[in-house]
């Protein structure tokens, strides 16, 4: 059994009178891929922002490895549906953006950016501005920017939500490849049940008012996952179960 990388102990977040996140406890094993599904307003993004340190929990404890990181930043990789590439920097300079924001960009940073872009098929676009790239390519660059921060824990908040179905499928397979090769731990928010099952080792189902985790489902589907995975009987059965939960059914 791999070690626990992230542990939440009864983490609670309220905005004025509204409880955005009811006491939530969960553990994420190092190197695992955990998907979080839930309808909008179920507190997924609040949960992410608490883990990332953008929000301080009102109660409870966020633990990363052996450190308590409540309200502290600088310890996770973070990517949203919006790629947040700055239009005034080239692809290479966008990949090194976090280094630029936190210290000086070194020669190794540039070399790594070029290496990773080349490895994942964007080597010819290093000097392009983001405006010249397609949505899928932009999300790849955003993910590379997240990877080169060398954080063990990556928080991905619906990163492919704005892409068309075809591109999204390509990006999912690409993400699985990168995840396998990089050995990072991924927490992946989505409202797409297929996506959560295709990618993850484990699916957390959340429900709103107040936001809480209502089910923690192990995903036994074999890896590597392919198109066939989507037709696997277990896939269909799990999907049915999660859909049932999302529409208010009892676990």
């Amino acid at each position, binding site marked *: 059994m791999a070690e626990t990388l992230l542990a939440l102990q009864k983490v609670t977040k309220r905005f004025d009178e509204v409880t955005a996140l009811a006491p939530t406890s969960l553990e994420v094993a190092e190197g695992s891929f955990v998907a979080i599904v839930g309808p909008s307003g179920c507190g997924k993004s609040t949960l992410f922002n608490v883990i*990332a*340190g*953008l929000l301080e929990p009102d109660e409870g404890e966020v633990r990363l490895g052996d450190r308590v990181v409540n309200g502290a*930043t*600088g310890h*996770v990789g*973070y990517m*949203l549906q*919006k790629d*947040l590439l*700055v*239009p*005034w*920097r*080239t692809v290479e300079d966008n990949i090194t*953006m*976090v280094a*630029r*924001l*936190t210290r000086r960009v070194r*020669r190794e940073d*540039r*070399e790594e950016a070029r290496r990773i872009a080349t490895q994942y098929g964007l080597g010819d676009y290093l*000097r*392009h*501005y983001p*405006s*010249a790239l397609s949505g899928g390519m932009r999300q790849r660059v955003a993910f590379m920017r997240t990877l080169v*921060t060398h954080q063990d824990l990556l928080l991905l908040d619906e990163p492919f939500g704005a892409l068309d179905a075809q591109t999204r499928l390509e990006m999912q397979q690409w993400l699985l490849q990168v995840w396998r090769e990089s050995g990072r731990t991924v927490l992946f928010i989505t409202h797409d049940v297929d996506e959560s099952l295709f990618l993850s080792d484990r699916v957390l189902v959340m429900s709103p008012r107040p936001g809480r985790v209502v089910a923690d489902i192990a995903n036994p589907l074999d890896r590597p996952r392919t198109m066939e995975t989507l037709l696997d009987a277990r896939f269909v059965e799990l999907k049915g179960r999660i859909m049932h939960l999302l529409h208010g059914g009892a676990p």
Partner: protein
Amino acid sequence: MRNVLIPIVSLVVVGLLWQAIVVLFHVAPYVAPRPLQAIQAVTQNWSSLWPLTLGTIRETIYGFFTGAGLGVGLGVIMAKVPVLQRSVYPVLVTSQAVPIIALASPLVLIFGFSVVVMVIIVAWIVFFPVTVNVVDGLSHVDQDFLNLARVYGASRWRTFVHIEVPATASPLFSGLKIGATYAVTGAVIGELAASSGTSLALYQEHANTNLNAAGVYGTTLLMTVIGISWFLLVVLAEVALTPWQRRSVARRYPWSRRG
């Protein structure tokens, strides 16, 4: 090429219209000259006009940079200190409600007949659109960019330099372009007010007294050309400094960092 051709063609059309009106309505030469006569009035007196033109250009440039610097500084401070934004904004708006002509005389009383008067008037006109645009630009930087910087523990200074400043480039240049168009107007008003020594504005007044219509119109054309040139220089600076707005691939410069 079309970008250059179309404005030139429309300028020529305006000239032809002018010519047509003067010819068709038999406008007397002491009321309005033909366009070519006005241009000749400039070229034939170039040796005396050139130093005056240089003077106006100098006032415009000094005033523009003073105003732009002041505008950026004020804009940044106001965007970062909300209390100042609320308290200083009304003062700035009031400053622009003062008729510039009415501002000139007290300035002359304070500074005498000096170039300082022109510089202050130009700066007075230029700083306002710059400040407004910088405040606007800085307060509308996408919050998600700022959150991204925060998640990674970026300092406020680095976030400002690498996110907020470049994100404000477009509105800043809008402000500078508006300022550039009005800068020459300010310089000429200053020259009229500080009516001593020599200047383009006084040259025009002189031509007027002598019923030299071609000279009057010619000087107006000359002032306009100064204004347009300054505007175009600001546009050129924008093109050079914000390449991502027009290009899809970054240029390679000899000084580009390598390795």
